């Protein structure tokens, strides 16, 4: 077991690696190093885990806002925070995620969570609702062959084109002849010219499936993003992504810290690093202690000068928003494509978290909005998106909703199903005036710097800086970054999380357990529920086997 040692002199401790900040990347590194026997001292100036990835209760959020607005001492990637909180909110009932992310089921981060067994500390929930804002309403995107097959709105030829593209994209890396010449060209150009896809399909693929900020994203990058979504479907069920209860980034970070502690790393929250002497390798903490660091310091605070700035908004609303969630789920993604909000150059992505996520009390929901547009412009578009969200939820959740539809505007599919022209529908809905207004319990806007530069150590320094959370709604490149840091410390990635957890994995009991669960399921299915036989994801979440 690795521990810090106290020298004979009494006041100087030693460690191999000092990690400053408990953000996600550095927490992974802490655990990886600790499991390989490195003496790790992991500190964070905040009284909570997660750093810029954390989910804060309202008291912490207020303190954070103040700190972030204090330009002089602000060493976070955040700035320009404006916070409004309604009175009478119980601060501890909220977990506001500073950098909301979702986890795709096919991702190296998920693989690492399982391999490291940190997944056992977490409670995951499914996220299968991805909507695109089109024609004044949220359209759910078709993400599987079955969605396309059963869709009542796509034409036959569109179905064919989409399927042809989907088949290609699942193996796109091998089919270089198809996309090579479009490598750096906009994905929209590629989709239109190579696959004859129409605008609505392109918008959905780019924005809700690829989660890309604009259709101008380069083809090579975009194909990877689109494939990520499609291959993530059906891994655990009819959803491509998941999130963790109580705020994903922070929970994952904390999970890795816990793992690191089990492996012997030492933790100190509320502790600042105030100086480092390169010649003596002494690090000075705000408690007055000096720590001798034999290998490296990994720091997530202070040095990161961001290249790009994004804008975020958080709104807590007094609506459960269940209309947007799939059955059994408590979250959704809504994307406003470019040019749908009076000329936005970048998409606005919204992550809707219901109370089932543990981030707010029941009857409420949190809307996390973000866009790549910065400053005033960014905020402007977020407010427009906010209005649209408000309109939509009021319309969809209101009970006394009636609108006029002419018999002539309804056409019938061969199988008898009525279809209303969506343009006409959009018009009618635009004229709808809600009887009630939406109550906002909290509103927060802020800017966030995101780096695009890779991590490099400064030439002979022992200090390596990590980088802040990225623009992506999904966790992208986290494991690579962690491995990169790990390599800068140890010189290799071969033993990264190669851990023998030395306990039983009895296959027979696992099978028997599975059989027992199935039997109980069947016994409880007293209704002849043949049609809606839906396996409860909760069964799977506890034993995350792949």
């Amino acid at each position, binding site marked *: 077991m690795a521990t810090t040692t106290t020298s004979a002199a009494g006041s100087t401790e030693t460690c191999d690696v000092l990690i400053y900040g408990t953000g996600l990347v550095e927490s992974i590194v802490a655990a990886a190093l600790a499991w390989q026997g490195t003496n790790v001292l992991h500190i964070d100036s905040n009284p909570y885990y997660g750093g810029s990835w954390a989910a804060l209760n309202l008291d912490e959020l207020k303190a954070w806002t103040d700190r972030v607005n204090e330009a002089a001492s602000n060493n976070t990637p955040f700035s320009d925070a404006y916070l409004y909180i309604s009175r009478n909110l119980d601060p501890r009932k909220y977990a506001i995620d500073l950098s909301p992310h979702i986890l795709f089921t096919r991702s190296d981060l998920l693989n690492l969570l399982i391999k490291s067994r940190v997944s056992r500390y977490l409670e995951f929930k499914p996220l299968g609702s991805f909507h695109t804002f089109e024609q004044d309403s949220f359209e759910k995107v078709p993400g599987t*062959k079955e969605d396309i*097959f059963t869709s009542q709105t796509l034409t*036959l030829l569109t179905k064919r084109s989409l399927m042809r593209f989907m088949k290609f994209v699942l193996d796109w890396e091998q089919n270089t002849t198809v996309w090579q010449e479009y490598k750096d060209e906009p994905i929209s150009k590629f989709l239109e010219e190579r696959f004859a896809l129409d605008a609505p399909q392109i918008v959905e693929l780019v924005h809700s499936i690829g989660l890309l900020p604009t259709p101008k994203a380069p083809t090579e990058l975009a194909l990877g993003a689109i494939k990520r979504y499609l291959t993530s479907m059906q891994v655990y069920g009819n959803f491509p992504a998941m999130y963790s209860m109580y705020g994903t980034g922070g929970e994952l970070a904390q999970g890795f810290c816990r793992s690191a502690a089990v492996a012997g790393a030492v933790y100190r929250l509320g502790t600042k690093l105030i100086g480092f002497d390169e010649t003596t390798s002494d690090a000075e903490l705000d408690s007055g202690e000096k720590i001798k660091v034999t290998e490296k310091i990994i720091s997530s605070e202070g040095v990161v000068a961001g290249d790009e700035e994004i804008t975020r908004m958080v709104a807590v609303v007094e609506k459960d928003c269940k209309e947007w969630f799939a059955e059994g789920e408590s979250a959704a993604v809504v994307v406003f494509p470019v040019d749908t909000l009076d000329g936005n150059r970048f998409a606005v992505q919204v992550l809707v978290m219901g109370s089932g996520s543990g981030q707010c009390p029941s009857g409420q929901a949190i809307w996390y909005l973000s866009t790549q547009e910065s400053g005033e412009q960014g905020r402007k578009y977020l407010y427009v998106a906010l209005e649209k969200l408000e309109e939509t939820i009021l319309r969809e959740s209101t009970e006394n909703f009636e609108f006029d539809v002419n018999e002539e505007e309804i056409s019938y599919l*061969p*199988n008898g199903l009525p279809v209303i022209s969506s343009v006409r529908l959009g018009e009618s809905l635009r004229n709808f005036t809600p009887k009630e207004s939406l109550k906002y319990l909290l509103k927060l806007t802020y800017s966030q710097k995101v780096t695009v530069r890779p991590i490099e150590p400064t030439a002979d320094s022992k200090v390596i800086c990590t980088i802040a959370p990225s623009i992506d709604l999904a966790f992208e490149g986290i494991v690579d970054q962690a491995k990169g840091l790990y390599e800068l410390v140890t010189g290799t990635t071969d033993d990264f999380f190669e851990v023998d957890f030395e306990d039983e994995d009895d296959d027979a009991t696992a*099978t028997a357990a599975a059989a027992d669960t*199935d039997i109980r399921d069947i016994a409880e299915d007293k209704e*002849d529920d*043949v049609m809606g*036989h839906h396996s409860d994801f909760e069964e799977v979440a506890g034993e995350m086997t792949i």
Partner: protein
Amino acid sequence: MHSVKRERTSAKVREEKRRREAVKIVEYKALVDKVLTSRKNHDYTPGALALTTTLLKQNPEYYTVWNYRREILSSIFQTQTADTIQSQIDNELQFLFARLIEFPKCYWIWNHRKWCLQSSPSPSWKFELALVTKMLDRDARNFHGWHYRRYVVQCTEKATGKSMVRHEFDYTTTKINANFSNFSAWHNRTKLIPRLLTEEPEIDARKLLGNEIYLITQAIYTDPDDQSVWLYHRWLVTSDDIVKLSSDERKDLLEKEIKSIQELLEVEPDSKWCLQSLVVYKGLVATLAGERVESSVHGYLDKLQEIDPMRKKRYEDWKTQF
């Protein structure tokens, strides 16, 4: 054995395996000996039953032991009340369920389950239906599962006196919507539709046919490489089992479908199933009209020989028909 990878092992590893198995072999043979001796001695006690349980867990293909197990149970049942028999059978069904999870394609396990239900004072067909639904969720192509499902449905219908054809038809719809590459589900539909039309004469058969064609067309356009959907399409379009159409009506239907497939062929010029279907349908149209087949058919067959060379001779033979 199916799908078991061959391993190139060293002599050392093989020797290790031999040593490990030597113990298991002795144990197994001893167990078999005990079971067979028990049977010879007409031992039908619970102790004997337990022996067969151990053996069958290890080797469910040992059909003779299933026979012996049934002998034991039959003997035990003779002295028991209906309630006790029922609970004994419920235990048996649980035991079988765990076996099925491990060996979903073993005939003997399914057979024994059927025997249990037949011997049961009050079998729960509802439970059996839920069980087989679950098995088919795990593997929608397991024909043992579908076979068992038909058996359960038959027994349920006998027990309740009510037809389940509508229920089963809807089940195939669910399965197809979840994954239309399901040859087993489409096949079942071909058996259920004629029954449905017979039992519910108020159904408009033409409308149903129209719906089915709409449905299968969605599938064809979504995945033209899937054989099962084309086979189903052919049945819909050519069979008299759904609606008995007149010559002219049949011709019209065929021509409508030909047009639809030709549109697909335009965007998928190398789709062999499009081409084959067009040959079949155009051939039928020509026969119905009493005319020679269109020359385009020869073009299709030439194209087929080009894109599907493995079946060249088949297309050559086909050509001679026209």
